């Protein structure tokens, strides 16, 4: 099996594999671990090219492998499995949308992760602001978010944006940080009623709703002046949760996966659902597990795949805050009790999992050709984040979206015959 992960993540996967081997004494799993996902993708492609593809591999955008015939169709095995084949086992309809291509099962998801709010409880208490709620019914509106962000943005002379003499070049505490990488940005777009990548291989970034959401995020920095330039906290050497812990930012939007790291830092934090544009929404994603079509050990590979889709395996990483459940069994009261960990999951976090994710979480669709398409979007949006262009100018007027659509059409043609 070829996958990735931070040292903590690797530890938990190791434990899982150990248990699998205990339960299946005739199978040994060689776990080829490559620390960074991007590097693992290169290693995976190289292995496939060299004819030494791993039996099971991790991949978040896995449809490219399906289109080229590198992944095995596991539909029959799925349907025959008493546990996995049950219609309500996985969170639906998200899992079917994620794991199937043309109705056939290829990439069963490992878990779910979703972007939401993390806040520094002390900074909010200082400013006298009621923290955002993990209950989607009580979510902040985007305008409330902007107003609270304004109150939480303080320059070296204790002034706020909008105050006379506010110096945006000498801010000691930023109110908010909403990153612009695909996952975080998608949260805003879906909340405004738009979408990013469609299952019909269209790019939704050019719709009025999407453009509005993108512009609103850019304006947080350039107009409202309550957020640092987005790239700043996404660059090397600085992560947004470190900025949260050190009090440089009061509220950040980042993935639920950050909980594992945030829980290790010594400060009072809380979690809330994303601010609402039109309706509460977030996006769901995670890496899928696929069986290589070249495998010499299909039965053993399936057994491993089935184990990787079990509650037992998923539980270890949900407990430490890295993953969110994708099985309905872990969303029941008993299920929740089995993974909520004090010191990791803040009060009310179960609502994020049972209500927010389940009822308002959209599967973030990864079409074949995603890597290149996303790169094109990122390059097109660069001038928007520094206020050089509007979202409309950068995506629509420039013709960028046409180029992206053409690319997606090509990819769709390739995968149509699978």
């Amino acid at each position, binding site marked *: 099996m070829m996958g990735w992960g931070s040292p903590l993540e690797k530890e938990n996967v190791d434990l899982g594999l150990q248990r699998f081997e205990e339960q299946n004494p005739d199978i040994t799993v060689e776990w080829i671990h490559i620390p960074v996902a991007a590097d693992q993708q290169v290693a995976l492609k190289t292995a496939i090219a060299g004819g030494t593809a791993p039996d099971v591999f991790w991949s978040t955008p896995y449809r490219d492998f399906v289109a080229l015939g590198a992944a095995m169709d596991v539909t029959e095995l799925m349907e025959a499995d008493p546990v996995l084949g049950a219609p309500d086992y996985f969170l639906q309809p998200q899992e079917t949308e994620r794991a199937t291509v043309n109705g056939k099962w290829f990439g069963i998801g490992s878990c779910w992760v979703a972007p939401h709010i993390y806040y520094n409880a002390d900074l909010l208490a200082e400013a006298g602001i009621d923290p955002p709620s993990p209950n989607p019914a009580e979510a902040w509106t985007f305008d409330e978010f902007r107003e609270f962000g304004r109150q939480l943005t303080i320059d070296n002379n204790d002034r706020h944006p909008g105050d006379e003499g506010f110096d945006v070049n000498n801010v000691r505490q930023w109110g908010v940080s909403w990153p612009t990488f695909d996952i975080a940005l998608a949260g805003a777009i879906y909340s405004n009623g738009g979408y990013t990548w469609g299952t019909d291989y269209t790019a939704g970034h050019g719709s009025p709703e999407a453009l509005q959401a993108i512009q609103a995020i850019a304006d947080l920095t350039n107009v409202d002046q309550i957020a640092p330039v987005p790239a700043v906290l996404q660059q*090397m050497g600085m992560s947004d949760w470190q900025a949260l812990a050190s009090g440089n930012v009061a509220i950040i939007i980042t993935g639920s996966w950050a909980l594992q790291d945030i829980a290790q830092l010594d400060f009072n934090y809380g979690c809330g659902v994303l601010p609402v544009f039109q309706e509460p929404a977030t996006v769901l994603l995670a890496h899928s597990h696929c069986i290589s079509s070249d495998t010499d050990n299909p039965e053993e590979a399936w057994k491993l795949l089935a184990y990787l889709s079990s509650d037992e395996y998923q539980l270890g990483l949900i407990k430490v805050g890295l993953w969110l459940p994708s099985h309905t069994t872990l969303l029941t009261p008993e299920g929740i009790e089995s993974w909520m960990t004090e010191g990791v999951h803040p009060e009310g976090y179960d609502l994020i999992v049972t209500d927010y994710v389940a009822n308002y979480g959209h599967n973030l669709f990864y079409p074949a050709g995603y890597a290149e398409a996303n790169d094109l979007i990122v390059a097109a949006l*660069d*001038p928007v*984040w*520094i206020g050089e262009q509007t979202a409309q100018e950068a995506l629509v007027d420039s013709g960028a979206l046409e180029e992206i659509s053409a690319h997606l059409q090509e990819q769709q043609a390739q995968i149509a015959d699978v």
Partner: protein
Amino acid sequence: MEYRAVASAEADVQPVVGELSIAVRGSRLSLRHKEALAGYIFILPAVLGFILWTAGPMLYSLWLSFHSWNLVQSPKWIGLGNFREMWNDRIFWTSVRATLTYAAILVPLFQLLSFAMALLLNTKIPGIGFFRAAFYLPVVVPVAAASFLWGFIFNSEFGLLNYVLRELGFDKILWFQEPRYAMAAMVIMSLWLFGGTMVIYLAALQGVPEHLYEAAALDGASALRRLFVVTIPMMSPVIFFNFVLGVIGALQIFTQAYIITDGGPQNATRFYSLMIYQKGFRDFQMGYAAALAWVLFAFILLLSLLVFRSLGKMVYYEEEGR
């Protein structure tokens, strides 16, 4: 046993190790042959390595450049298809522009800086060794590790560089968010590595004969004039060498862009090598990547030939007395 001294039939006469041939039961393994054989055996690993891991793969990639290969299925012959695609590829031209711009800015600055520092450090004051070592140190830092650090230094909000600028009263610079500043940052990161070339210039400086300086001084040449009529002409072979190597290296810039910017912002740092990597390993287009690599090779080859024909003519080689 018979000992026969055989006079050498060839023109060169080796006085000590001559053509002493010892007849041993019908086989004549002369000392010269033995030495040759030993020589070949010693260079065999290097030659084999070159064939297996350089020449061989290069030939394979040349073959591959006429195919379309998605890494999963077998390569498909498409003739000049990759080269046609390249011509029409927007990203290709963007990449060429970015790479040439970078090289055009970096190489003159880099050579000037290395040369100037070498002149400065070509003194015998105590402690000069420390400075020479200090300026060389960046060269031994792994580029990937240094890139991470530079990412922090250039961070627009929390980075060291903007902190200094703020303290001096300037506005923060959006280093990796604005295209021209991203290019400037790339140049700065590469200039930091001037120590390696400086050391070469230093060595060459110390090879310039003192008597030429004395002669020039006697004729009334100022220090500056001596620089232009003695130092630079005498060092011209080394300057030329460093310049050619500098250009070749600059056109292949990769690591900093791969680690920090991933080609952004707005493709300002989408250098050619990075594009090859992305096409081959990200977009499943290894045949196209191979074609791109060969175009780069051909371009650098042609450019080097051009430089040799033009600047090469201006180089003064002492032995040849030109």
